[in-house]
């Protein structure tokens, strides 16, 4: 007798598993994912992991270089800044602040953008074109200008910076959503659903959205990296987070005043931002390739 179990063991991977299998094959992407996970762990568990508090000033140990330097000390593995605050701790808290604020900003921008994009994609005519136009202008305006205006109206601070960056990111998601929705609306399966009696909301929630999720995840990842760069740039310029908050851009600006005798005050926070953004970009790129290729292999 032939063993009929042969066919039952054939593996039909779900889309998620297929994506992961594709993703796994690119070693660089996995490496990026590992680093990103490390950052996320630090961001969540930072306060528990860090040896000191970020605002305590050890006034007898100012400007100590990192431990591998001759003048360094193992007590402060990555050195201290000009006020005697431990660098490693500040990096942990800084990662937390920067990463979380970027993620929150992108989530909100995503939510708003998708909502508006759906409305724009499903409707036609003057209303949609007007919204589009305003959003286009928003998209064309340099992010820094938007931030300057928001700061002029509302004042400085991390939340206002997040608001400004969020505003700058919304048009991107609106476009994405609107293009996607428009394209999908012409497809057969949507027409079937509508013939079945679904109204627009149900069509969106149950048909379009599941197909859109992956696209949103990829674009959201890139948006997070952009948000990190922009929020830290605003922190650096003192338009976002202010000088007493452990935010990575602010730390770089603070370190400028002692750059010649203590360059690690600039190098280390900048390196952290760089690695965070790089790992997110790698993961996003890997995801996108995986999504594109999962069906062809």
């Amino acid at each position: 007798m032939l063993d009929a179990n042969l066919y039952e063991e054939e593996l039909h991977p779900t889309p998620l598993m297929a994506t992961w299998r594709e993703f796994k094959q690119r070693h660089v992407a996995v490496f990026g994912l590992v680093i990103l996970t490390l950052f996320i762990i630090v961001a969540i568990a930072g306060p528990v992991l860090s040896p000191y508090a970020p605002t305590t000033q050890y006034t007898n140990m100012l400007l100590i270089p990192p431990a591998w330097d001759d003048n360094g000390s193992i007590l402060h593995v990555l050195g201290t800044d000009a006020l005697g605050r431990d660098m490693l701790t500040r990096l942990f808290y800084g990662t937390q602040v920067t990463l979380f604020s970027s993620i929150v900003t992108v989530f909100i921008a995503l939510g708003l953008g998708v909502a508006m994009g759906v409305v724009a994609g499903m409707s036609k005519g003057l209303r949609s074109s007007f919204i589009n136009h305003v959003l286009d202008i928003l998209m064309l305006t340099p992010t820094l200008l938007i931030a300057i205006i928001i700061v002029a109206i509302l004042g400085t601070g991390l939340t206002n910076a997040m608001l400004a960056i969020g505003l700058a990111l919304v048009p991107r998601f609106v476009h994405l959503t609107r293009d996607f929705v428009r394209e999908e609306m012409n497809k057969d399966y949507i027409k079937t659903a509508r013939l079945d009696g679904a109204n627009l909301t149900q069509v969106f929630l149950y048909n379009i959205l599941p197909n859109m999720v992956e696209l949103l995840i990829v674009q959201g990842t890139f948006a997070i990296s952009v948000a990190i760069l922009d929020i830290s740039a605003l922190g650096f310029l003192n338009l976002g987070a202010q000088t007493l908050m452990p935010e990575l851009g602010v730390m770089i600006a603070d370190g400028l005043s002692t750059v010649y005798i203590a360059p690690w005050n600039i190098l280390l926070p900048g390196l952290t931002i760089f690695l965070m953004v790089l790992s997110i970009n790698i993961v996003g790129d890997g995801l996108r390739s995986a999504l594109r290729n999962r069906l062809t292999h």
Partner: protein
Amino acid sequence: MSELANRLISFNNTARLRLLVTFFVALFVALSTGCTDSSISATAPAGVIYCSESNPSSFNPQLDTSSTTADVSAHQIYSRLLEFDPSTGRIQPGLASSWLVSDDGLTYTFQLRRNVKFHQTDYFTPTRNFNADDVIFSFQRWLNDDHPYHDVNDATYPYFSSLNLAHTIASIERINGYRIEIELFERDSSFLANLATDFAVILSQQYGEYLMLTKQPERIDFYPIGTGPFRFDEYQKNQFIRLLPHLQYWKNVPLTDQLIYDITPSSSIRFAKLRTRECDTIAYPSQAEITIMQADPNIVVEEAPGLNVGFWAFNTAKPPFDQADVRRGLALAIDKNSILDAVYFNSASRARSLIPPSSWAYNNDIKEINYNPMRARELLDKAGIAKGFRMTIWAMPVVRAYNPDALRMAKLIKSYLAAVDIDATIVTYDWNTFRDKLNQGEHDSVLIGWSADNGDPDNFYRPLLSCDAIPSGTNRAMWCNPEFDALVNTAIKISNEDKRAILYAKANNMIAKEIPLLPIAHANRYQVKNAALQGLSINPYGSIRFEGVTKTVPSPTPSVTSSAVVVNDEVRP
């Protein structure tokens, strides 16, 4: 697809690569013609660049006590009747070639120097030499409320009003074209010293008339005309100021071809520019970098004890800071030594009183406040200050000799106050906005200080803590104590130094008891400059002087001449 790409590549690869390589080589060649090591200084035209730390509020030091304004104009654009010798502090002839004081000390007669010429620029040409009319014009501007220029540019004259000179000077008379007589109401042993400060500059009366005629009186403070070694050429806010040599300067000293103030607010960038030789000397070098500068063979570091004090002033006009116990409690909460360490990097001495130890008015047995947080908390409780009390600490945004980093000091103080359950907020603005708001009394406390304008100890007491100094804005503690005023006002009338010292000792004790301000440090003054710069010395009695300063430039071609302009061979006393 790879097959297709292969076919396409076989053409593209080599040709494109070749193109790229040629491009990069060309780029490299282009860049390397511009990159030689000494090309920054050897090919530039002659001149001296000074990195200053912020914008001047105007070009007339009469209107402002800020050292930024004085740095630009006091010794560059203007001269005054008397000058200080920078090494001894003695008073020397300036535009006044000689002077006499009457026996009762009330009448001062000045003989003015002849053949002194004012600047000639593209906005004004003088047609006469300096004479007594200019002196009268300059003095009456701030003395006389009805003078046509008194209110021009909303002028206040903070230095003069803080000393109440308007009520000390009875009259100024023109005896003849080159002789002036000044009468005082009462004796003032610091009067001559006050005439030699940065602020007592001499303006051009002819220029004043000209501007009145052309209905542009406000230009007198922004397009200045004086008798100093340099004349004004151009100013771009936040960028630079360019001054050119006054070819007919009355002193026979070498002057550089161009004097540029490169406005650079960040102290570490000023230092970096000194190293890359984009600046020849810088303002307020950071103490932290002094050791590195000393190691660089191209940089010369000079040090001199400073006549200054950095302090933490409480706004005694605002409750609860009007209670001495509250102020004392706050003062007990902080540890001055750690501030000296963190902010001054041990290049300052701990201040026990307002006046530095190098002055003859210093008394050694002053009772000083020591770090005692427990006692601090007790006093604050007794005065009714609850835990979690909120106050503001205003930190000045600019660097000064007496406080190189007010922001850092504020952060340190904030953490000390947090340890006694006081919640402090740090406030700062850009310098001019900051001072405007301080004048309005918006602060609870402020970190600021004072650099003396002359060697007389009166210069510390009256401008900082007398009642008259409140409207002029130099009394940041907003403190008005009639007993204190009586002490210092009596002291300036006596010429005997010992007797004055006793009065000042009483004043010191009063300050230590009432604590309108907490003196923190007396900073050493440093000067760092490019080794090629000649003739620049530290001026402890005023702002920087560029007359006689030249730079030796190693010139590769004979056409680049050395940067000295010798002027005006004869000077008749």
